[in-house]
């Protein structure tokens, strides 16, 4: 029912760097310069230690921040501020507590030229995909953390974005809920293919989800290594090839963590 032909757009991060001015007026390099090319419809996961600039990267992609250097292109077009073509799933859910579940999912659709009944139809469809159709009229504070993040995922997919940005979306959830939501996200994503940029500090999460994994170095964050994950989904992260990959990623990550703890 929702345009299945569209699989999102490519993302080109071209020599992007972010520098902040400290209070003393000296420049503090938070990120990059980094360059990444993400294909349309690709599930791209960025792994990195805390404080490596992952969130800065995501805020640049969302358009909350402007890069000090470089360019961000979506489908070949430079981005100008936040927009519906790049929707975001936040770690803190960031749902609007004064709106009902379905009104949250409809929020982004209000800015589009379509009838209210069409908006409702799309929102209900998205809620059905995350298994929350019967919660459409509940208040947000009646939901558990896992359900809130499902609503946020439905809200993000509802606007049919070119790119879906996910900032440690399952970081605040317990291990079991996290597992369920990872599976659910893949199911929703396979049904309506979008380009996904997913940020996490969990290597096993990355292995379970990603087409490609990129490891960021300690501040200022740069791309340190990259792996393609070819295993078919649903994946068993305890299978031999993935365990081998995991060992490799951890080896690289450990050198970064040592760098962090000694700096």
């Amino acid at each position: 029912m929702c345009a299945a032909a569209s699989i999102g757009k490519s993302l080109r991060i071209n020599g992007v760097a972010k520098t902040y001015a400290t209070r003393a007026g000296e420049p503090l390099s938070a990120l990059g310069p980094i360059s990444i090319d993400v294909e349309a419809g690709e599930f791209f996961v960025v792994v990195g230690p805390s404080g490596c600039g992952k969130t800065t990267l995501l805020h640049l992609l969302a358009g909350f921040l402007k890069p000090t250097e470089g360019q961000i292109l979506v489908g070949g077009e430079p981005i100008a501020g936040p927009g519906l073509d790049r929707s975001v799933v936040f770690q803190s859910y960031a749902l609007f507590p004064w709106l009902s579940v379905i009104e949250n999912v409809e929020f982004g659709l209000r800015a589009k030229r379509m009838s209210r009944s069409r908006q409702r139809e799309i929102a209900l469809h998205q809620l059905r995909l995350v298994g929350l159709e019967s919660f459409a009229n509940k208040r947000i504070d009646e939901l558990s953390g896992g359900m809130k993040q499902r609503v946020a995922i439905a809200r993000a997919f509802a606007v049919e974005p070119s790119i879906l940005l996910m900032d440690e979306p399952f970081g605040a959830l317990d291990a079991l809920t996290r597992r369920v939501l990872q599976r659910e996200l893949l199911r929703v994503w396979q049904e309506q293919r979008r380009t996904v940029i997913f940020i996490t500090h969990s290597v096993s999460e990355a292995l379970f989800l990603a087409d490609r994994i990129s490891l960021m170095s300690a501040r200022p964050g740069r791309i340190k290594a990259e792996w393609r994950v070819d295993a078919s989904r649903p994946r068993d992260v305890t299978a031999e090839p993935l365990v081998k990959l995991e060992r490799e990623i951890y080896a690289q990550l450990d050198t970064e963590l040592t760098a962090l703890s000694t700096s």
Partner: protein
Amino acid sequence: MISKMPSPTMRLLARAAGTLPFIVAAVVIVVVWQLVVTLTRPDPSVLPPPIDVLATFGQLIGNGELATDTAYSLARVCAAWLLSAVIAVPLGLLMGTSRSIENIVNPFVELLRPISPLAWIPMAILWFGIGESGKVFVVVIGAFFPVLLNTVVGVKSVDPALLHAGEVFGCNTRFALFRRVVVPASMPAVVVGLRIGFGTGWAAIIAAELVAAQSGLGYLIANGMDVLRADQVLVGMIVIGLLGLLFDTFFRFLQRRFGRGD
């Protein structure tokens, strides 16, 4: 998964348990009062026993005087509170959103705020006489600042993630973000301000009526003092207290309804 909703009976029981401490406190006050009367035998014009006050209470209800005075005080405080809300809420929303508006308005607020509404009563009489507008003016002074300051704080403490979510999901202009995110997200703090403002306004109207009125609960107790009727004064005080508690409870109920999700 879904947070457990208590059954209606459980909720009723919980509410009853919540009011129990208040009933105990009220009983303790009456008992202590009666003890003081029994032990020290004061002149009834200074401190009458609770039973006499109850009789006066019945009498003032019977002749309609209490209802009239309550209606006067309520009408004044409601009109003035609405007026201050109509000015303070939009102004607070603007001050919270725009740094330059805040920088201009804040000095006025900080200079005027420490002046108690009671200190304005003489000026109110000089300017407006002892008509209704003077009293409304005093209550506006009393209710205005809590509403304003809570609104400003509410706007400033909106979760930045909600602002980001608003920007991502279609609020392309500052005004759209203001209307669709900032205003509704600040509502819980606005309701707190309205509650506190009503409380300070309620205190201010009694004071204004003590000095310059021919009606209202403040007048009822001032008049009681003039004619040495402590029982009448006490009836007035009790009604003021009970109504204040009632409004506060009502606003707390609103607060829960507009409360934040997380």
